[in-house]
């Protein structure tokens, strides 16, 4: 029966990982920028959910509606005002710039929220359900449901909306998109805004499950890295596949080797994937 429990755990965790990584993957895929501020956005989203619940008792799933536009605007402005200026510079410059921005945001959060770990505890707690010895906490299940829904929303935006098609076009061939009349600068800003919105929403969901502190941002960022490389860049299905694979490896690894080796395992997997299959599980070759 423990096999079923491990699989269920991996499934639930995998959807959450996909949700963490998907905005990161979008920004990396479309803008070719490794967005190191992503982890801090997630933590900021979690603080938003925590703060609104403490102050006004608004449940996290309603906070999603507030968080998405707020973070979209934040991300859009950041890209429009700062990142667009250096977007054509080499990898090193954009990466270091987002690192600098991350330092600022993270320091601001430590300053205002302190480094204490906090947890959003719903009252009354949601409990857990068990089916044939397999136990799943309900709050995790709810968060997973919302994570899948968010992933679906992004998929629909990229598939159905005009702006989504433009984002995909820029990702596939920047120069051709320009020739077709796409305003690349505003598409970059939109894509970055979408990435930030997804990070904020992921953070809101994380607040339900994990303890939050500004110091956890690097953990989230690390997961996003691994998921992106495992699954393949810039596609919704890739992030989902990567998230599930990572969660499966972590759950099985924790069962057999103990939880202290999970991080080593996941990063070792990352390096193996980078060398053997840099395009990821579902990625196609040639889109760098």
């Amino acid at each position, binding site marked *: 029966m423990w096999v079923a429990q491990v699989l269920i755990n991996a499934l639930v965790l995998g959807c959450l990982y996909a949700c963490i990584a998907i905005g990161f993957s979008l920004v990396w895929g479309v803008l070719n920028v490794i967005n190191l501020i992503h982890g801090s956005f997630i933590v900021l989203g979690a603080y938003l959910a925590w703060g609104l619940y403490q102050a006004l008792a608004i449940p996290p799933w309603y906070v999603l509606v507030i968080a998405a536009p707020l973070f979209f605007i934040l991300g859009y402005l950041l890209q429009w005002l700062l990142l667009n200026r250096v977007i054509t510079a080499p990898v090193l410059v954009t990466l270091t710039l987002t690192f600098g921005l991350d330092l*600022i945001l993270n320091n601001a959060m430590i300053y205002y929220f302190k480094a204490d770990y906090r947890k959003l505890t719903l009252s009354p707690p949601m409990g857990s359900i068990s089916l044939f010895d397999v136990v799943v906490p309900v709050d995790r299940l709810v968060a997973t449901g919302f994570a899948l829904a968010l992933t679906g929303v992004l998929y629909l935006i990229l598939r159905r909306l005009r702006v989504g098609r433009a984002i995909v076009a820029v990702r596939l061939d920047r120069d051709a998109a320009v020739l077709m009349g796409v305003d690349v600068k505003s598409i970059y800003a939109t894509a970055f805004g979408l990435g930030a919105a997804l990070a904020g929403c992921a953070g809101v969901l994380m607040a339900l499950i994990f303890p939050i502190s500004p110091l956890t941002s690097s953990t989230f960022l690390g997961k996003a890295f691994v998921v992106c490389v495992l699954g393949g860049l810039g596609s919704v299905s890739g992030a989902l596949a990567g998230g599930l694979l990572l969660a499966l490896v972590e759950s099985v690894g924790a069962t057999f080797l103990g939880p202290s080796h999970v991080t080593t395992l996941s*990063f070792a997997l990352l390096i193996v994937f980078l*060398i053997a299959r840099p395009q990821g599980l579902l990625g196609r070759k040639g889109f760098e």
Partner: protein
Amino acid sequence: MTRVNLALLVFIGCVAALPLFGGAYALRLGTIACMYAILALSWNVVGGFAGYPSFATAAFFGFGAYATGVLLNKGVPLAPSILATLVASLLLAGLLGAVLLRLRGHYFAIASLSLVEVLRELVNNATDLTGGGMGLNIPLASGSGILADATFFFYAMWGLLLATALMVIGVSMSKLGFGLACIRQNETASDMVGLNTTLYKSAAFGLSACFVSAAGGLYAAWVHYIDPSDVFDILYSVKPIVMALMGGLGSPLGVVSGAFLYLALEEVVWRNYIQIHSGVLGVLIVMLLLFLPHGLISLRSRMFWRKAKHV
């Protein structure tokens, strides 16, 4: 040897006179300045000359600190420990480089970042050898008074800086440096004309790692206590990049002055704004990248240096 490189050696020579002027505090600052300059110069070999965005500096710094720390705990004297660390790290980085440097751009950056995580977790879990998360205490090396100790470690670090500078100047004047510049400009083309790019990149990666590890080893012996989150701090990877960007990518003199300037700024910020020091560092990075992307060396007056060789 170009005038810029001569200027670098003269500058480093001047630094050696520091103990004549300052007390223990100045010596501490000087030691850290030399350490930062070693990290930045070493990073410059792979990041500035070859153009590979390496974030592995912290990995090798931590590796060196732990290698030396463990050796010192086993009773090996300081100098052989540092030497062993240097050789071990040269070999390790050369091997890792042959594998990791097949990746380009973002993928290489991510792989080198995750190298730090992997090594940190390995050290964290090898409790028997390294003490794990409890850290590692390192026996006092000389034990002869505070000022004598400080002077000793200052000159040790300074000597290492001199060695690093000579290595970097040597690389920049040799065929290796020329090959790395070719790789930076167009790797595929240099491969086509018969340059063994894998060998060149591995050599550069190895050289950029070994002095960093030796500096890590000296740091461990100097502070007597290390723990994984301290020496494998990702900031050790990022700071050299900021210093190099500050001074001017690819120019050894620029990089060293960038390191010294960075330390000065860091010290001022630390002293006055302890609670927001990393935020101020972030603002500094953002400003630097937006307004001075080619570093201080790009501000140089034309009559003194006619043209920059590696920009």
